[in-house]
């Protein structure tokens, strides 16, 4: 009995696969006019039809494989990228995930109409079964689209997080033996760890005797940020480099004093230029005060 049931389901899936392959052109033509395809593939209608055909082919392959409810079915692999881009494009125009899901669900309607036309008696059991099989398959397609879109979002966030980590901590060589790190944004524990590592590496690579930590771009200096700064300064000192913390704005200076942070052991300067002048002077390099002035 159970075997018979499975056979029948399998048969229905095969039949659906055959239908999808036969009616590929018509289905794709109808889908090309749905909002999902029309608003994404805007270059030409042919482009939308081609995209539709690719999806129909994928569905036919999945149906032929008999794994109607499996969103990891290999048949979806070919269109996963395309579906992801489609969903992303819809999301960019302001569609919510629910709306996109609805638009994918709407694709079933036009395919179902064509499917019904295949049967002389729409009330027949075969027709019902075919419609049911199509509904299951389209439901799976909907999940595939959603899953692809969600994964793309998660990937994007992870990529941006990584980018932020790297972008935020460039070590710049200002002069021979002088490196600088312009710190930008929130200096949490993870970020300051990256800063410390890249700064210490740069001290070794550039054989730097002076390292300038510029905090102009750090909006808030609380006790944790101050502690991270002091640890970085101490680590650099162990490696034989002197650290200068620059970019201390008046508001930050007052806040540090009220908070009670003792930066007495750290050389600080108001601006990056002052810090550079200090480091140069310590190396015995004299820079003229103004352009055109000849050092005596």
């Amino acid at each position, binding site marked *: 009995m159970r075997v018979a049931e499975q056979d029948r389901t399998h048969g229905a899936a095969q039949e659906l696969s055959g239908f999808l392959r036969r009616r590929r052109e018509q289905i794709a033509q109808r889908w090309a006019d749905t909002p999902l395809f029309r608003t994404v593939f805007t270059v030409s209608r042919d482009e939308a039809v081609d995209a539709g055909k690719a999806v129909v082919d994928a569905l036919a392959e999945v149906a032929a494989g008999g794994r109607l409810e499996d969103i990891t079915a290999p048949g979806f692999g070919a269109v996963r990228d395309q579906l992801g881009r489609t969903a992303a494009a819809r999301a960019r125009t302001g569609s919510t995930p629910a709306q996109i899901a609805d638009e994918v669900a709407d694709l079933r309607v036009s395919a179902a109409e064509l499917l019904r036309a295949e049967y002389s008696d729409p009330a027949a059991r075969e027709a019902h079964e075919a419609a049911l099989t199509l509904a299951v398959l389209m439901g799976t397609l909907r999940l595939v689209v959603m899953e692809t879109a969600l994964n793309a979002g998660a990937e994007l966030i992870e990529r941006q997080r990584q980018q932020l980590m790297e972008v935020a901590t460039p070590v710049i060589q200002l002069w021979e033996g002088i490196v600088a790190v312009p710190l930008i944004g929130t200096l*949490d524990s993870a970020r300051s760890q990256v800063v410390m590592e890249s700064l210490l590496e740069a001290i070794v690579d550039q054989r730097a005797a002076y390292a300038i930590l510029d905090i102009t771009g750090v909006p*808030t200096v609380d*006790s944790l940020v101050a502690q991270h700064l002091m640890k970085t300064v101490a680590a650099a000192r162990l490696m034989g480099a002197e650290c200068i913390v620059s970019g201390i704005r*008046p*508001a*930050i200076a*007052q*806040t540090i004093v009220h*908070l009670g*942070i003792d930066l007495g052991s750290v050389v600080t300067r108001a601006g990056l230029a002052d810090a550079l002048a200090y480091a140069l002077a310590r190396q015995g390099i004299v820079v003229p005060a103004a352009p055109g002035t000849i050092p005596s």
Partner: protein
Amino acid sequence: MAEEPRPPASISLPIDTDADLARIRQQVRQAATDLGFGLVQQTKLITAASELARNTLVHGGGGVVEITRLHEGHRTGLRLCFVDHGPGIRDVDLAMTDGYTSGGGLGLGLSGSKRLVHEFALDTEPGRGTTVTVVAWASGVPAPRSGAGSFRPGAG
């Protein structure tokens, strides 16, 4: 604290992760800017908020902060109320001492924050949790010196 009939815009934010701290700083900065805080006063309040929110996260095991805009006569201010249901503070005097820490920090969170705001109230009980309420005013009212009268549990 009498408030004008104008509804005090009050928002509540969770303190559960490091990312929440950044969001709180942004919200406090926005509110302080709207209320006309000067740059120095703004920076002080944001820094205090950062310290207290981190205390709530690290020592209180997470909680919430309520940010309330105050309108009292001609002056405007901002009240921040940090609430956690953590272990509480056993020795308040010790916790308020500069340099005392139980968490590996600099030990300036509570004592330092108090110096950065105009009003500071600490309500805590071992086993029940801790509520820290601070108020900063946009006008140039000088911050009260440490000690006298600024320590009012339950105020605000």
